[in-house]
């Protein structure tokens, strides 16, 4: 019998281009492939008649208030589903759960708040750490199975929230989209990137927590590097019109892959990441990654030669991190052997531990969707490069 699943999230996954929205669409596609009917509820789409809900608790935080409406409203329709998957703490108000429930943790707000404490106002710090983290996120672990997107997040969920029922399913990279391209020069032409430039890519939304202060200082100190900023939904970037800089916003996934493939390195200085999909995608595209030891970088970039590009932790000071970043950029720029070694190491790691079929297998297995009679061992199909 066909199973039905509901996904509770915060933002419209078809309108926003954040990591969680990509993950939501990925889950939807996977569940549908395994014969599940999927409905997605978010703050702009609630079950019918949910607006007349009378016993929904009201929060001072407007964001939590709208999330609470999603969770409470879901009670009206939960009987229509076999299980529910909540993204992050966005389904916290569906508590206690009346059908099997899962929470996918992409990060922990306690760790996020601590990593960005110096950037946050005291009010925002309290809200992020205590309300979103120790409040809503911790509530999202009660009576629900926790899926962590990386070992780092699994550790944080256990440490900060005392969760016991945690399974790590590393996010997978879609290798049908993210793979190394040979026609780099043509791709550079396509994106109006100089053919002979040494190109650094920044792939994230424009926000203080993504360490854009560090990025800007590094950009200032590297006038001979051509910078491509691929920005998701975030604050407006003030660097439009800057020399040797190309800003590309709201691009499709395939275009992101093409940009990554024609660049020379990814610079990912973010102070905190639960997973850091951009890092994994860049590795898949054969792009050397200079990143802070956060999320997937913490566990994957531990072996040479990629290890040599890992930045030190911010705990030693921002100036030292910037100095280390400049040092690594220079090394990549002037040491072709190192560059080639890193470019080859990335695409080897992804099929081993960050590929989509593995994620899909672990995910579907955790949800208990496998039919016991059939063989569902994941297979990794190597991709061949299409002609551009």
């Amino acid at each position, binding site marked *: 019998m066909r199973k039905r699943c509901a996904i509770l999230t915060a933002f419209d996954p078809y309108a926003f281009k954040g990591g969680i929205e990509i993950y939501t669409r990925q889950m939807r596609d996977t569940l549908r492939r395994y014969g599940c009917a999927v409905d997605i509820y978010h703050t702009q789409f609630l079950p019918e008649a949910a607006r007349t809900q*009378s016993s929904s608790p009201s*929060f*001072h935080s407007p964001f939590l208030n709208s999330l609470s409406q999603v969770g409470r409203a879901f009670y009206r329709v939960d009987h229509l589903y076999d299980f529910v998957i909540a993204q992050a703490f966005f389904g916290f108000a569906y508590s*206690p759960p009346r059908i099997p429930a899962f929470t996918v943790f992409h990060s922990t707000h306690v760790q996020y708040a601590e990593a960005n404490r110096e950037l946050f106002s005291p009010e925002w710090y*309290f*809200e992020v750490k205590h309300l979103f983290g120790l*409040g*809503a996120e911790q509530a999202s672990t*009660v009576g629900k199975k926790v899926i962590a997107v990386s070992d780092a997040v699994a550790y944080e969920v256990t440490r900060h929230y005392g969760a016991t029922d945690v399974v790590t399913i590393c996010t997978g990279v879609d290798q049908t989209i993210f793979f190394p391209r040979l026609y780099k020069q043509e791709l550079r032409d396509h994106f109006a990137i100089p053919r002979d430039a040494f190109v650094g890519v920044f792939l994230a939304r424009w926000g203080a927590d993504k360490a854009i202060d560090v990025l800007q200082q590094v950009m200032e100190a590297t006038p001979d590097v051509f910078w491509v900023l691929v920005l998701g939904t975030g604050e407006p970037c003030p660097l439009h019109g800057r020399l040797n800089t190309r800003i590309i916003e709201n691009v499709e996934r395939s275009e992101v892959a093409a940009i990554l493939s024609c660049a020379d390195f990814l610079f990912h200085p973010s102070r905190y990441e639960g997973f850091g999909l951009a890092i994994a995608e860049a590795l898949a595209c054969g792009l050397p990654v200079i990143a802070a030891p956060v999320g997937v970088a913490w566990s994957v970039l531990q072996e040479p030669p990629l290890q040599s590009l890992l930045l030190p932790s911010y705990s030693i000071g921002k100036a030292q991190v910037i100095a280390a970043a400049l040092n690594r950029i220079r090394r990549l720029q002037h040491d072709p052997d190192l560059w080639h070694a890193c470019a080859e190491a990335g695409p080897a790691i992804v099929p081993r531990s960050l590929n989509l079929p593995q994620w899909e297998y672990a995910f579907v297995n955790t949800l208990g969707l496998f039919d016991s009679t059939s063989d569902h061992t994941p297979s990794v199909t190597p991709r061949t490069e299409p002609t551009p």
Partner: protein
Amino acid sequence: MNTDLPPAQRVFVIAPHPDDESLGCGGTIARYVRNGTVVNLLVVSNGAALEEPDGQHDDIVAARSQELETATTTLGIQSLHALQLPDSQLAHYETQIRKTISEHLTTFQPDLVLAPSPIDSHGDHVTVGRIALQLFRSTPGWALAFYEVLAPLRFNTLVDITDVATVKEKAIRCYQRSLFQQPQLFWRAFRALNVAKSAFVHRAGLFEALWVLHAPPTDHELLDWITYGFQSGDNGPSPLQRVKDIDDLVFALQEKTRALANAERQLSALRNEVAEAEQKLQEQATRLTTLQEERTNSDTVSQISPPAFPAQERHFVRQYLEYAFPVGSSRRAALSMLKRHLTQYTSKSPKE
């Protein structure tokens, strides 16, 4: 105030005793039946604890069962299940009651469950209401509506039963022995209760009060609702309530942080003002010193060209003149001697 009948195709009514369904929500049941909704009834106790005025107690269980069946037919209820547990002792049978209700929920699959309010003066009503609430927290697929019997209930829905009031009256009148041989008195009392609700909707009629829930409330919310926010619960173990409490604390902390930042800004502004005032004072002091110095310099100049001799010196000059210019000396010789002596005088130090 919502006066719509909660939408439902299948309604499951739970009554602690025979007669509670008619007294508490007989009109609502009649309206559902009139709309073609399937209504099933579970009566939990056998009503054996009733103390009749004439002391005849032998066949009370059978009598009340008979009355229940008649009332059930009157209301148009499709299916009746009497659990026949001992009256006034339902708290001891929680497991059995929960199991029975669960089975009914599974087999009948109602959209709406009508249960007595757990805030009531009768212990059996509390037990049944609490079990319904617990099941609502764990079993999906239905909405829960509490009805009032003995204790007034804070409601969010008033069902207009004016058109079916006669059905409710007939059902109540079925309970001769259950209602102490005075069903007409109970009808009048409950009619008054239903009429009183017309004050909330500003139109004449009879209204049954329901507290309709679509999502399980925490104990805190329950208490908060029942007491109109006067008494908040002890927070309990509910994760959602914990988030709410943290939200309150964070909000208070944010308010205080903002107040602190404001106070610091004001303090900083005051410090600046004080510093500016000090600066101005310093400038004034400097100006005063300059003025004093100017005055001092000016005084020195005055000493160099004195406007007049002091009195003592005037006396000395007079003596000198009398000595230097005896009567009869020439004016020219006198002036010449005066100049010579004056030059000698001014070139000497003050001591001399």
